């Protein structure tokens, strides 16, 4: 029974994240537009874009290789799986033992690996810029992320997301300095990883500071659609990661009744809305920074993560 329920929840989440991701993207765009006193596109605009792109034919550069065509699907699949394995509205997913926090970070790493390669495949200068910068950013963001993971897993005594979530739900946590540090660090990483301002501007082209857009410059049609979907999935993933790790209130624990699951779902959506709103505010509030300042930005987050971990290492087991 429980197994079946877990399986159902897992499946539900698979579908849920897929459906919810573009909505989140659209919502954030909308809020940003409103903050800038613009009307902005409708919230469901991303869905339209995706459908449109899916129907268009693919224009492929002559010297694009098989890798260029396989990459989008792999990227999408990896991101989707990762997103599906992060507890959103309920813990105790059937497949949650398959991966832990570290593995999820690594999964996103695989997606990025493919994306960067795809950027290099056609052999254009823009693609090169994109991949090179993306890898530089990630080479700092990933350790920072792992440091955050360390901090949490040291607190919860586990790298398993569901266990961490349940631990954070408990009252034993209290308010800890290292938690605050970790939270800030994680948010900075999330901003960097999702190519948001101030690291990168998802809404620009033909700007020498662009990173993510430069990589996917050669993509078109269904490939582009898949990649865009992956991008919004990634955004959703990071948001729900933050929520699940630092604000796991109302998340349904395995084996509860349907009502609690529904409640959990509702709370999750609300939390997403709040998170997206904050993101939008943040993005509109500050300006984009030079690429070579990014290292400082991420260095700070890495330091924060390390500091948090160190504090815990020292405070534990004494």
């Amino acid at each position: 029974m429980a197994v079946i329920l877990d399986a159902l929840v897992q499946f539900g989440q698979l579908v849920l994240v897929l459906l919810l991701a573009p909505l989140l993207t659209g919502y954030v765009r909308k809020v940003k537009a409103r903050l800038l006193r613009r009307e902005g596109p409708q919230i469901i605009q991303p869905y339209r874009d995706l459908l449109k792109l899916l129907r268009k034919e693919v224009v492929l550069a002559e010297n694009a290789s098989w890798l260029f065509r396989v990459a989008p699907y792999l990227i999408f699949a990896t991101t989707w799986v990762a997103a599906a394995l992060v507890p959103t509205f309920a813990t105790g997913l059937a497949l949650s033992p398959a991966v832990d926090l570290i593995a999820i970070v690594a999964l996103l790493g695989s997606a990025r690996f493919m994306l960067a390669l795809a950027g290099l495949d056609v052999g254009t200068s823009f693609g090169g810029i994109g991949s090179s910068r993306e890898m530089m950013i990630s080479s700092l963001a990933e350790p920072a992320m792992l440091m955050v993971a360390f901090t949490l897993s040291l607190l919860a005594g586990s790298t398993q997301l569901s266990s961490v979530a349940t631990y954070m739900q408990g009252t034993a946590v209290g308010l800890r300095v290292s938690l605050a540090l970790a939270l800030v660090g994680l948010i900075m990483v999330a901003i960097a990883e999702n190519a948001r301002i101030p690291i990168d501007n998802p809404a620009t082209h033909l700007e020498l500071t662009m990173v993510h857009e430069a990589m996917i410059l050669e993509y078109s049609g269904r490939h582009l659609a898949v990649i865009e979907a992956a991008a919004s999935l990634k955004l959703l993933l990071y948001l729900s990661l933050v929520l699940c790790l630092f604000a796991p209130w109302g998340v349904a624990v395995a084996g509860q009744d349907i009502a609690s699951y529904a409640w959990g779902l509702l709370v999750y959506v609300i939390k997403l809305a709040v998170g997206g709103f904050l993101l939008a505010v943040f993005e509109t509030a500050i300006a984009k920074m030079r690429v070579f300042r990014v290292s400082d930005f991420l260095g700070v987050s890495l330091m924060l993560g390390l500091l948090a971990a160190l504090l815990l290492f020292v405070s534990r087991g004494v």
Partner: protein
Amino acid sequence: MAVEVLLWCIAALLATAILAVAGVRRTTTATLVYTVALVASTAALGTVGWVLVTDAGLAQTVRLPIGLPWLGAHFRLDPLAAAFLTVVNLGGATASLYGLGDGRHEREPGRVLPFFPAFLAGMNLVVLADDAFTFLLTWEFMSLTSWALVMAHHQRRDNARAGYIYLLMASLGTLSLLLGFGLLAGPDGSYAFEAIRNAHSSPNTAAAVLALTLLGAGSKAGLVPMHVWLPLAHPAAPSHVSALMSGVMTKVAVYGFVRIVFDLMGPPAWWWGAVTLLFGGASAVLGVLHALMEHDLKRLLAYHTVENIGIIFIGLGLGLAFRANDMTGPAALAMTAALFHVFNHSVFKSLLFFGSGAVLTATGQRDMERLGGLIHGMPITAFAFLIGSAAISALPPFNGFVSEWLTFQAILLSPQVPQWVLKFLAPAIGAALALSAALAAACFVKAFGITFLGRPRTRAAQDAEETDVFSLSAMLVLVFLCLVAGILPGYFIDALAPVVQIVVGGHLPQQAALSWLTIVPIAEGRSSYNGLVLFVLIAGAAMIASYVIHRWASHSIRRSASWDCGFPDASTATQYTAGSFAQPIRRVFGTLVFQAREEIHIPPPGDMRPARMHVYLRDRVWDALYVPVAKFVGVTATGLNRVQFLTLRGYLTLVSGALVALLAILALWQ
């Protein structure tokens, strides 16, 4: 029984080496040598595997009446040796298979064929050896044969230099190991490992032995700062030999370290772990940073060997630290991680070197700046290299990730150790490990992207053709192993259990029995990973996506010129090069680590000369450690050399001076 079989395989290899000397002139020799090597290695691999699975014939010893006369040559096969023999012979078998194909293009077969089987035999013997003398003899024999292979293409100046530095460092390592064994064996020279195991040494002695072992085994494994020879020597050899040196010989060095420190030296002190951790962390980060700055494909791979050896030593250091505090479970986890990474690295490093060798054969180029677009000419090689890159970058669902994941788990257990130094060290090492993993990913995006993707930068790269079937099959075998070890790690971990058992006196819980082959190093609630599920999910999701799209959405494709934001440029020079790819990271780390300097010459307007940019990097370790030593030797030699030019009277003065001095001493002594 098993030991005899292995010794026979080794004998076959040695005999082949001698035959090869005789048959250097003949063309069929290559085929013969590689076939025999392949058969022998496979046989040995089979034997060892059989032993590991069915604990039959373990810990049995053979004593041959050679070597030190009153001691004889002891050989012993225990789980530890078996595990490393698996690595050695797997590497040997695949390298021989590769050699069957790629060896045909060898310009100097006479300088490769005799030494290749001898090298294999040497590595096997080191792992089998059970007394200090045999160990060191075979150890140095291994170095010697590999040196000969490095010198195979001796006409290139830097190869000769590489060989020189290599043999010098190898002898330094051997000498320090020799002194270490001298301490362990004691004045009456009880060199048998059995005797050493039973003798207990004082803390000071142990400290000295640890230092000497780190120097000896570390210099062979390529630990920073003893790594300088490695990126010179490994690429200089023929590619399949590079694969053996990087993928296998360094593991033999790791074996030496484990054998001495964990097995022979008795219970460790906690600071051993700290020291080892420091060396490991430094190697991990510096190795990968060097690799990023490199644009010679094979040298880049060699630097990555330094990085991975660092990761292995991090695991070993954690193992030492835990074991010193009698934390058997964590120690077992750390050791499992290290040993599993030993296996994994040997697999994907061999794979990558084979790939680079195929590229080298097809294009005659090792410099990435002159390659590109090879994925069109040699798709299968490209695929194999891609898998290897993903594996070495610790990306799931491949094998590299599993061992690094285990290492992370071990690090996460380190707050339980009481020593403050370790408490502070562990998270820093964890950060270093994470950093090196991320940088490795960046580095291999560069390596694969610049070499295989984009547009060909030279004519040679343009007309590159897929390599022969033997080389390809060798690579594909390794690709398969990368995947299997990645999605079914449980079996490998279980196979390592007896090894870990003898090394730290405990092992991880049985993994293969768990539901859906999940691996759970400590506890269900704590952490778990399931490569199989992950693999199935990703593959399934990808298929579903593509199926749905192709079924219901468009599947039409139009080829056209690349868009490139509307500014397409025909010249391939506008592509990103390896140097430009690494530039952001060089900006971040370069000045600190390499004292990187950039000089940009832009000719004045109207001057048609192209603008030029030079990047100058310095290896600080080399400058700080090795240059002064060389200087000292040079200066002393020049100074003493004056004695060669004294007059006869001067010499007579020396003699009578010596006489008078001795007489004076005598007078004082009495």
